[in-house]
């Protein structure tokens, strides 16, 4: 009889372990949330440099195949108006179109980790990816509270197949709906390089959507904010939409 409390404790621990999804499952749910089947959105991007200069850009973004195909077309300012990027296969293949010369240029994948239009976002940030699945092992390292929301704190460490610049990423995922609220990116020197926050989360067409995202470079002290002006998850791409033909339209 004296072993009964121990059994109850073990049962309690086992049950609580069953309630807590494992890190991989959390990350998979988060990835599904971030990458709906397809979408069409208009966004603004405001870049604030360390010296206080500011640039505001507006673009239309179209995604399909759960974010594996992305087309990004700039509307303003005039200096980049019409400039378009087509990213396929999780930004492994990138084409850029310059309207004044009508030239299409294929970019090497070495450029996918480069800043887009001087912002703190790079090409791979715009494309969803299988990177959480293939490039990182994930571990649940605890719970946290961010803005009164209970979050899972997950640490992602690179696998040998990782080709992006961050060997370690720490994520905070809201427990109520798997929305990511915060991500810390650590570079190869082990330094905390970037912080990404997801704000103003609203449910649109049943999908929790961060209407504002903010990326801060902790080493260069630059910041980029992205705001969703309009988003449509019911949009489906017409045949041939993610093609060089449409890049030039």
């Amino acid at each position, binding site marked *: 009889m004296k072993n009964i409390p121990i059994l109850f404790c073990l049962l309690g621990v086992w049950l609580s372990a069953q309630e807590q999804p494992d890190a991989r499952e959390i990350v998979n749910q988060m990835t599904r949330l971030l990458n709906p089947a397809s979408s069409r959105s208009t966004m603004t991007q405001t870049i604030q*440099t*360390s*010296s206080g*200069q500011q*640039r*505001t850009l507006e673009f239309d973004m179209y995604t399909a195949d759960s974010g594996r195909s992305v087309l990004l077309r700039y509307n303003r*300012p*005039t*200096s980049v*108006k019409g400039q378009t990027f087509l990213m396929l296969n999780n930004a*492994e*293949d990138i084409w850029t179109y310059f309207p*004044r*010369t*009508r*030239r299409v*240029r*294929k*970019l*090497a*994948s*070495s*450029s996918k*980790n*480069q*800043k887009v239009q*001087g912002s703190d976002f790079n090409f791979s940030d715009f494309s969803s990816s299988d990177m959480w699945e293939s490039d990182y092992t994930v571990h649940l390292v605890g719970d946290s509270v961010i803005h009164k929301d209970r979050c899972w704190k997950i640490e992602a460490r690179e696998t040998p197949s990782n*080709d992006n*610049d961050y060997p370690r990423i720490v994520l905070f995922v809201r427990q109520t709906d798997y929305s990511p609220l915060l991500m810390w990116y650590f570079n190869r020197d082990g330094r905390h390089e970037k912080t990404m926050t997801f704000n103003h989360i609203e449910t649109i067409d049943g999908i929790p959507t961060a209407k504002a995202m903010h990326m801060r470079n902790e080493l260069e002290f*630059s910041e980029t904010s992205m705001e969703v002006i309009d988003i449509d998850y019911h949009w489906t791409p017409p045949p*041939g939409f*993610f*093609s*060089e*033909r449409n890049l030039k*339209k």
Partner: protein
Amino acid sequence: MNPASKRCLVGLTLLSLVSAQVDWFGYLESEWDRLAMNAREYNFGYLKYRLDMESRPTDRVLVAANVNFQQYLGETTWNLLDFLPGPIWKPELQPSTLPDSLWVTEYPFTYHDTLYLDNAYLRVNFNHLDVTLGKQPVSLGTGYAWNPVDIFNYKNPVDPTYEQTGIQALRLDVPLTDRGGLTAILTPAGGWDSATKYIQWKSGIGSFDFTLNWSQYEGVYRWWDYVLYAGLAPTTTRYRAVGGTLVGELFGVGVWTEVWRKTQAAFDKKEFWEAVAGADYTFSNGWYVLNEVYRNEQGALPEAVTLYDYLFYFNGSTHSLMQTYDFFYTFYPVGDFVNAGIFALANLDDHSALVSPQIEWNLYENGTLTLWYSTSLGKADTEFGWQGDGWRLRLRTYF
């Protein structure tokens, strides 16, 4: 502008005005240049105003046009002979067999202020066909500094990304897959035989895109022996050409190549090969490196280069003066919206080069400022070696 072009422009403008809202935009560009050469200094530049209009009466139709006004500043009348190495032109124009009084000492040309219709075209997208008609930008090939397969434009390797003036053409694009299709370009001429016909088939395999290209067009025939000795004017000849392009990546390095073989349809049916191959890479800190090697069999050999080879090159009849070149370009983002770079253009035949450090600064959302300095290396009678030092400042403001 000829009357037909004027009618076309008026028609397009009226069509766009009545059928949809017109989007007006453009830029103002100002450039100042300073060149020190042959113990002389030249100061010159221009003010360019480009006004674009675009209208989309329906989702399937685009009407676009732009006019450029360019006003030249400073030195506007030039002596062509100042820009050629003396040993190249003196034997032709100042032969020792003639008295000094009969020597040619100058070949002047003047830049006049211009207002011209740069582009004016209509594009209609059908389900399985895109039709573009009018004066339009045409850009072919994968190379950065040179595009052998692009017979419509002649890039300046010193400023290879600068926009080119439009080409009067009918262009048909038939998409066959998401990554490619068939393109046919026809430029008008006096007759079908003298019209330029161009066909390109594009496709992709893995991370590579490739094209196969064919063309028949008229070009200037290199007839200099006859010009020189029999007093004939350069004549045109029809060329048939085939080639292809390839672009992709190997181990993260961007690679591309273009090959073009053209054959004269008449005379001695001589063949010329032209090819370019390049690679680029972007390091994780943003440092970008590009190198391109170019070979043009239609260029002159260094031991046999003549005044007429220079003229042949200057009038755009060939993509290079000599045969083998290397282009190297690198830049690094040194600060907020500032790139510092350097390019080198080397003539591997006569061992001369042009080296140019440059800074590009995105001053504000719609403004860029670029500063170049260039210096030359090589012997005094080489393509680049005789050139002096130069500065260029370019400011562009979009609206």
